[in-house]
C-alpha cells in the first residue's frame, strides 16, 4: 500500500478545489458526438462561473435549436431551450425583466447568423447586458450537415453538393458593425483562453459577443477540423483597453484565426443604465 505524501495531498486538494466548477454541471451527460468541440466550451463555461463565483440559481442560460441548443441541459442553471434563432430575444426579455440575473444566450452559427440574424444588430445597439456565445462550427450540425452562414464559399455540403454558392459572413465584423460593446473570439481547443473571455464577457456591463471556433467532427471533415484549427489559431494580442474600432475592424478582416478580445467599450451605458439615464 502506498503512503500518501503531504505535498501530493496538497496538490490533490488544489485540484479538488478547482474541480468545484463541476457544481455548474448538470446531472445530464451531453449527447454530443465524441470529439465535438462543444465539450470544451462547456468546460470553459463551468470554470468561468466558478471563478466568478456565480450562484447557480442566478444563472439563466437561453439557447436556440441545434446541437448547440442542448447546452442549457448540461448546465446547472435555469435553462431555456427556446426556438431556432430566438435565444437573443428571449434572453433580452428575461434580462430586462430581471436585472438581478446573469443571463447567457448561446446559439449555433445557423441559429445566430441565419434564422436569428435579424436580432443581433438590435441587441448590440441596445447594449442589453447579456453574454452571447456563438458556437460557430460553420455547419448545421443537428440537421446533418447543410451549409450555414459561415460555411466557406464553394465547400461541398449536404445542401450544396456541388459547392456552397454563398460567401461566408464574418461574425466578428458583424458584431463590431452592430456596435457591440464587447467582441471576442475563442477556440474550443483552448479552454483557458475561452474561460477568460467568457469571464470578461460576463463581467462586461452591456452586450458581450463571443464567437467560439469549434469543429463539427461529424459533418465537417475538411474545413473547421480540429487539425485545421489547432494549426492556425493564435493569440490576437490586441489591447481591448485601447478601445480602437479601426484596429478591431482590421483585425476582424485579417485575422480569421486570431483569438482574444477584439474590442471593448466600458463606457457605453448598458440598456438598463440608459433607461435610468433617460427616465432620470
Amino acid at each position, binding site marked *: 500500500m502506498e503512503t500518501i505524501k503531504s505535498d501530493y495531498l496538497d496538490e490533490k486538494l488544489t485540484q479538488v478545489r478547482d474541480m468545484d466548477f463541476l457544481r455548474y454541471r448538470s446531472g445530464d451527460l451531453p449527447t454530443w458526438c465524441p470529439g465535438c468541440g462543444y465539450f470544451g466550451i462547456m468546460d470553459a463555461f463551468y470554470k468561468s462561473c466558478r471563478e466568478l463565483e456565480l450562484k447557480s440559481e442566478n444563472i439563466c442560460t437561453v439557447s436556440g435549436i441545434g446541437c448547440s441548443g442542448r447546452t442549457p441541459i448540461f448546465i446547472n442553471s435555469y435553462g431555456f431551450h427556446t426556438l431556432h434563432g430566438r435565444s437573443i430575444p428571449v434572453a433580452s*426579455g428575461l434580462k430586462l425583466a430581471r436585472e438581478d440575473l446573469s443571463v447567457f444566450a448561446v446559439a449555433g452559427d445557423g441559429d445566430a447568423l441565419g434564422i436569428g440574424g435579424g436580432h443581433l444588430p438590435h441587441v448590440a445597439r441596445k447594449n442589453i447586458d447579456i453574454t452571447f456565445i456563438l458556437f460557430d462550427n460553420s455547419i448545421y450540425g443537428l440537421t446533418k450537415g447543410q451549409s450555414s452562414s459561415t460555411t466557406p464559399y464553394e465547400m461541398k455540403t449536404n445542401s450544396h453538393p456541388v459547392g456552397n454558392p454563398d460567401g461566408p459572413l464574418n461574425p466578428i465584423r458583424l458584431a463590431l458593425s452592430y456596435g457591440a460593446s464587447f467582441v471576442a473570439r475563442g477556440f474550443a481547443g483552448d479552454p483557458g483562453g475561452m474561460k477568460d473571455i467568457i469571464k470578461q464577457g460576463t463581467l462586461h456591463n452591456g452586450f458581450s459577443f463571443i464567437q467560439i471556433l469549434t469543429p463539427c467532427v461529424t459533418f465537417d471533415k475538411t474545413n473547421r477540423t480540429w487539425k485545421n484549427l489547432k494549426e492556425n489559431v493564435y493569440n490576437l494580442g490586441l489591447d481591448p483597453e485601447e478601445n480602437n474600432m479601426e484596429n478591431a475592424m482590421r483585425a476582424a478582416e485579417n485575422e480569421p484565426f486570431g483569438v482574444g478580445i477584439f474590442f471593448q467599450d466600458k463606457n457605453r451605458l448598458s440598456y438598463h443604465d440608459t433607461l435610468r439615464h433617460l427616465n432620470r
Partner: protein
Amino acid sequence: MKDIDLVIEICGSAGEGTISAGEILSRFMSGQGFEIMSFDSYPAEIRGFGKCVAHTRLSSNCIYSPGKLVDVLISLNDGHSISQLSTLKKGGILVYDSAPLKPHGEDKSVLGWAEPGTVTYGVPLTMLANRAAGNSRGRNMVALGAVVALFHMDGQSFTQSIQARYAKKKQVIIDANVNSFLEGFNWTKKHIEKTDSISFDGVIMPAGREKLIINGNQLVVRAALDANLKFYAGYPITPATKIMEILSKELPKNGGTLLQTEDEIAAIGAVIGAGFGGVRAMTATSGPGFALMTEFTGLSVMAEVPAVIINSQRGGPSTGIPTKTEQSDFNAAVLGGTGDCPRIVLAPIDTFSCYQATVLGLYLAEKYQTLVVILLDFFLSNSIRNIDIPVKPSQVFLDSNIAPTKAELENYQRYKVTPNGISPRAIPGTPGGIFFSTGLEHDEFGKPDYSDKGHLKMTQKRFDKHSFVLEEAPAPQISDFTGDMADIGVISWGSSAGAAQEAVMLARKDGIDAVSFSSMILSPFPEKALVAFADKCKKILVPELNYSGQFANFAVHIIKRPVERLNYITGRPMASEDILEKMRQM
C-alpha cells in the same frame, strides 16, 4: 322623464376639425350624464383631404352598439357628406353650410342629395366663422353652436366644454372657438325655425358618478398597469400602436420596462423571456404581427411560460385594411399554430370589458403558465365610451404564480402532473428550483422525452388545465328566457356582442321571442353552457364581422346543428339594426 337616444355624425374633410368637434360633443354629453359611444373614421393615408366622420351615439339609457343610422348629420363638407347621407335615417336632420365660400357646382350640394322628408337646416357656417374669428377655421364650432341651439341643449355648459378642450392653447384660439360657437348658437336661435321634435328640454339626468371617457386601447393600458404589468415588448402596428406609445410613458413610472423590438417575433420572444423570469409581460399587435408570432405561441404553450398577446383585429387577410374593423382573426387566435396547442383566448365584448379581459388575461397567463390571446378590434381599440371608473383588481389577481413548496423543491419537478394540470413554478433565482424548459416534448423534470406515453401524458396535462380555466372565467352572458324554449338564440362574440344583445332587446319589444348568448372567453369555450342554451332555441343566429363565419363554424362543431349567419365586412361595427332585420326574416 323623457328618453334621449340620438346618433349624431359630423362629416368633413381632414383638417376641418371634424374629429375635435365630435370629441367636444361627446365629452359634453358625458358630462351631462348621458351614455356615449363614439368613433371616428379617417383615411388610411398620412396626408390628404380624405373624408372624416365623427360618429356619436348618446343616450339616457344603456347603449350597446354605436347605432347604424344617423339622426343628425352635420355637414362641414358637401362633397364628403353626400356619400354619408345614406346613413341618415328617414326623416333625419341635416345641418349644412348654407353659404359656402364658393357656390357649389351642379349636383355638388349636399342639400340636393338629401332624401325628401329630410329635415334640413342651412346655417351660414363659413360666413359666421369668418365673422367670429376672421377666418373659416371655426366652422366646426359654428356647427356645434347651431346644434346646441336647435336641440335646446345647455349652451352655457357647452361653452365651458369648449374652453376645457382648448385650455392648453393660447387665449386667442380659445376665444376664436368660443366666439364661433356663440355665433352659430345665436344665429340659429334667431333665424332657424325648428321643425323637428328633438329636444333636450326637461331632460334631467341624475348626477352620475365620475366617468372615464376612454377608448379600448387606453383602457387596456390602464388595466395592465393596475394588474401589475412589469414588462412590455412591442412593435408598432395599427390599431395597436397606441398601447405601446402610452405604456412607453407610463410603464417606467410603475417600475416596469418597455422594449420596442425590431419585429413582432422579438416582441413575443422577449415577453416569453420576461415571463420565464417570473414577471408579468405582454405585447400588443394586429393581424400581420400576430401571424409572425405564430411559432412563439407554440413555445409558450409547450414550455408553459406565461405570455399575453393583445391582437387588435383589422381588415384581413395579409396587410388587408389597416384602418377598418373586422373580426376575422378568430380562427388564427383559437385554432392557429401547429400541433395540438391549447391556449386561452379572451375577447372583450365592449369597451369596459377590455379592462376586465386584460386583468384576467394577465392573471390567467401567470397562473396557468400559458398563452393568453386577447382579441380586440379596430372598433374596440378606438371607439370612445364614458364608463364608470373600473375597480382595481384585488391582490389575488396581482400575483397568481403558484410557487413550489419547500417539499416540492426536493427533487423538483417543474412539469409535475397535478390534478389541475398546474405544476408549481419556480422563478429563476430560487435556490433549489433549477429546471430546464424546452419546446421539445419533455418529462416532468423538463428533459426531452419522445416516448409515446410521455407525449400523451404531457399533452393531456396541457389540455386538462383548460377545464379549470373555465371555472375562473366569467360565465357567458345569457339573457333570460321567457319560456322553456325561445324562437331565436343569438350567439355572438367580441365587439359584435353589444349589438347582438341590443338587437335581442329590440326584438323582444317587437314581439320576437329571442335570447342572447355571448362569452368573453373563446378558448377554452364554455361548451356545456352553449349546448344547454342552443338546446332551448329553435333557431340560432350568429352575427359576426367576417366573411367565412369563423365563429359560426366553431359554434356548429359544438352544438352540432345548423345555424343562421349574419356576416359583413364593411369595416363598420356590427349594427343591432341589421341583426334585428335578420331576425325578422328568420
